């Protein structure tokens, strides 16, 4: 039974269908509406339109891996004991039998070896956590590079950034819970980080650990933070993130029929619900496969935590790698002032630097709109090349992140590539400053040259690969005008407008007061847009189109005339 293609809805506007006979679903809906009164809200939202693009799926990966984390996490709490009291392991793993360890570690081993499916749940939980944070990061990059964080979505950018920060902390508290040698070393280092904070450092450390490190309070406290405090905040923030997404309606790529005023795509019910719901099962299934086939965090190989032991190549989970790298390449500077000590070598890279980077991340949308003076609403995405400075700024930050991350593995690089760890460290100390600058410059120029290319395609047509030989014997490649759809898509972007003090006027042309930093703002705005390539004007485009048509015509004429000879 094929669909009657003439009766498919093409828009959500217009009158709603009214059924004569109340259906069963309708009866339930009526019952619910008389008690909840959600009918009005649902009228608009059940068939809410979502635009389609593969990159819009990245946030969904994060969302669904969070759900997987909740499900597998609840499972783990049924057997895990958040206790540091000393027990003698008597479980199934022979190599550790008879070894004394914390109850936390022993119960983790029990989950891994004596509970059927327990290891699967543990590994799924850990893989899903990695997926959660990786997906959030890639989603953040997508949102940034396409300009989706511009007005009115700045608050959602802030919420998303907080989610990334909390997700990272959640990951740290989570992988610390087994109380194995590796995670204990991580907690040991965290104690050192806290103690480096001037004035209050030892107080923070002693309060958190319930006295001196390691004490016997840290695991139960991290457990509470891991399963209650942070997940609660994460849930609330995710809910806010989604509500704002619905309220703002999703951004879309510009294209024929896709404008700032509309959103083109598939309705929530049924298409998007099915696609998103199906995608949940895909994410869940992939983590199950990973949990079944890929070993992660084999704590039984590390053994229980012992403050006098350590393994070579001790590293945190990958998302903690970049501050760890900063810690490794920081010169060992420590000040002794009177009878006090400030450990700059720890405090700066691990407490101050991540805080500064996170603040920069939070401020990016506000910084950009202040510099550009752009207070318009934006619902159409921008290609990264069409905002060269924005793109270059993030690539620069990414380069910084990547170099720090590499520094976090300087020992492994030294071993695997047979290099001197001293030289790697010295080189990285320079590269973390020079690299981002180079990346900024290269990316910016690259974007601008891509913009030029777009204009070339628009004005001189696309390369067809067809070589023409002229009567004189010269060769040339035939260019062909691009389709009106492609031409429209290439030009569907606003022209850049530099913010100037002189241009800062109200509708009647009266100069508006400018802030104290107006001069700086004007200069930054000029730098922001400097050398950007604008789309052609209508005259330029029409002229080029006429030229292209003419050239095409001439070629045909030549071919025609030569065949006559």
């Amino acid at each position, binding site marked *: 039974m094929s669909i009657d293609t003439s009766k498919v809805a093409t828009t959500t506007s217009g009158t709603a269908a009214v059924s004569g006979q109340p259906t069963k679903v309708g009866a339930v809906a009526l019952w619910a509406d008389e008690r909840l009164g959600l009918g009005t809200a649902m009228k608009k939202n059940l068939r809410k339109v979502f635009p389609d693009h593969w990159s819009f799926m990245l946030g969904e990966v994060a969302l669904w891996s969070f759900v997987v984390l909740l499900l597998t996490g609840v499972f783990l709490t049924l057997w895990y004991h958040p206790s540091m009291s000393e027990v003698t392991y008597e479980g199934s793993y022979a190599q550790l039998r008879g070894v004394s360890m914390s109850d936390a570690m022993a119960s983790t081993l029990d989950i891994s070896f004596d509970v*059927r499916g327990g290891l699967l749940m543990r590994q799924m939980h850990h893989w899903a956590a990695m997926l959660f944070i990786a997906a959030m990061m890639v989603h953040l990059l997508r949102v940034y590079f396409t300009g989706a964080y511009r007005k009115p979505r700045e608050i959602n950018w802030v919420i998303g950034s907080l989610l990334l920060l909390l997700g990272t902390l959640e990951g740290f508290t989570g992988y610390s819970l087994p109380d194995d040698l590796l995670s204990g070393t991580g907690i040991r280092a965290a104690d050192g980080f806290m103690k480096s904070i001037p004035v209050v450092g030892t*107080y923070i450390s002693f309060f958190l650990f319930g006295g001196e490190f390691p004490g016997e309070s840290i695991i139960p406290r991290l457990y509470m933070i891991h399963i209650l405090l942070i997940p609660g905040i994460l849930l609330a923030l995710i809910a806010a993130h989604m509500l704002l997404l619905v309220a703002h309606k999703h951004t879309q790529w510009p294209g024929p*029929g896709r404008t700032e*005023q509309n959103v083109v795509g598939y309705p929530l019910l049924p298409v998007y619900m099915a696609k998103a719901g199906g995608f949940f099962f895909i994410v869940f299934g*992939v983590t199950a496969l990973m949990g079944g086939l890929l070993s992660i965090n084999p704590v039984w190989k590390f053994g229980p935590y012992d403050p006098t032991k350590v393994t070579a190549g001790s590293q945190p989970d990958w998302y903690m790698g970049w501050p760890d790298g900063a810690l490794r390449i920081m010169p060992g500077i420590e000040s002794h002032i009177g009878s006090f000590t400030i450990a700059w070598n720890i405090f700066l890279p691990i407490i101050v630097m991540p805080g500064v980077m996170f603040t920069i991340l939070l401020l990016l949308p506000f910084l950009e709109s202040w510099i550009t003076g752009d207070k318009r*609403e934006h619902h159409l995405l921008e290609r990264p090349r069409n905002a060269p400075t924005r793109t270059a700024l993030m690539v620069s930050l990414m380069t910084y992140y990547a170099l720090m991350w590499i520094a976090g593995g300087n020992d492994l690089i030294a071993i695997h590539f047979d290099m001197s760890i001293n030289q790697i460290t010295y080189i990285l100390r320079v590269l973390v400053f020079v690299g981002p600058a180079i990346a900024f410059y290269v990316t910016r120029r690259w974007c601008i040259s891509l913009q030029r290319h777009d204009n070339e395609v628009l004005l001189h047509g696309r390369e067809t690969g067809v070589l023409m030989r002229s009567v004189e014997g010269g060769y040339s490649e035939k260019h062909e005008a691009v389709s009106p759809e492609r031409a*429209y898509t290439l030009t569907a972007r606003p022209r850049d407008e530099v913010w100037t003090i002189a241009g800062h006027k109200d509708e009647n042309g009266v100069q508006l007061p400018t802030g104290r930093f107006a001069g700086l703002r004007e200069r930054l705005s000029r730098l922001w847009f400097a050398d950007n390539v604008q789309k052609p004007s209508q005259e330029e485009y029409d002229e080029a189109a006429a030229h292209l048509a003419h050239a095409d015509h001439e070629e045909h004429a030549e071919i025609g005339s030569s065949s006559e000879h």
Partner: protein
Amino acid sequence: MSDLTSPDPHDGHPDTPASVEPVTDPGLPEHTWRPTDVDEKAEKRAERQIVGMFMLSIVCVIAFIAVYVTANVGDDWTTILGLGASNVGLGVFLGLALLLIGAGIIQWARKLMSDHEMVEMRHAIASPEEDRAATLAALQAGLEDSGIGRRPLVRNSLFAAVGVVALSPILMLRDLGETNAQVTANADYPGAGLEHTVWEKNMRVVRDAVGTPVKASDLQIGDLVNAQPEAIFPTKENGYEDLEGAALQIAKSKAAIVVVRMEPEDIIPGEGRDNWSVDGIVAYSKICTHVGCPISLYERTTHHLLCPCHQSTFDLADSGRVVFGPAGRHLPQLPLDVDDEGYLIARSDFTEPVGPSYWERDSKDIGDQGEADV
């Protein structure tokens, strides 16, 4: 479906007149029907595929149950490819069961549900002018009614009261733990506080895992021993008080040392540390002065000790000086001696706090730390 374009096709910047746009919006492209929309055979095929996936998912769950009840965990686990069969089987079948449901639903959405793109108009995020005005008026009226502006004394005293009340939960966090000063003063366990360890005068140096004392003559040049104070291993003979639980972990986390033997002439003794070594045997804290990882990678030819966490490197021939890496301070040295039986003993506790730096640490140069109490 070009009739679906918005009323103003020339994109959404009211400040940009349409005439400067070089290309006009051609509108949404014509919708093309999928084979499943127009070909009954293709539709039936898609339906069969989807049902097949859902059914196969059920089969996977049955296999999952079979693995759960048959594959061993615990003492003797069955293996596949060297991996636990239970884990692999459960993971693979659960994964496939879930993936098949997901793939089935998505196939359903793609092949059978309408793929007709719909257009929804956006509305300004900001509320309409009159709503804003009404809200502001309501806010104003409410504030007027409350008199919050007219009665600053009431308002400010409320703020003060709430602020003070908010302090109480913060105050209650106070008992999370004792401070360093309290821990040190109470001395509930040996070596309490950041400036002390369980080391004391004449305490024997013992091997860290087994607790046997270290005889100076048993160490060869180039040897390294991971050691602990004898108090970590209390017995009836040595008479040290029982250590367990947190007190034991705290003691170990501060008292751990490395003992190395090198050519006596290689040692450059620090100021006032001439008698801290025994025939080329020196002892240093094993806890890195950077963030506190136990250090253990020793290079015997250079006498360098490297921390595996952040690669701080210390020269054990030269008072534990930092030769590379992020550590800001030398490793604390434990003054050594030998007792009548030839076993290594400590001359005193460390003369400076071990482990990572902290604000209250009264850091002094090696020469200013005073003598070990000999």
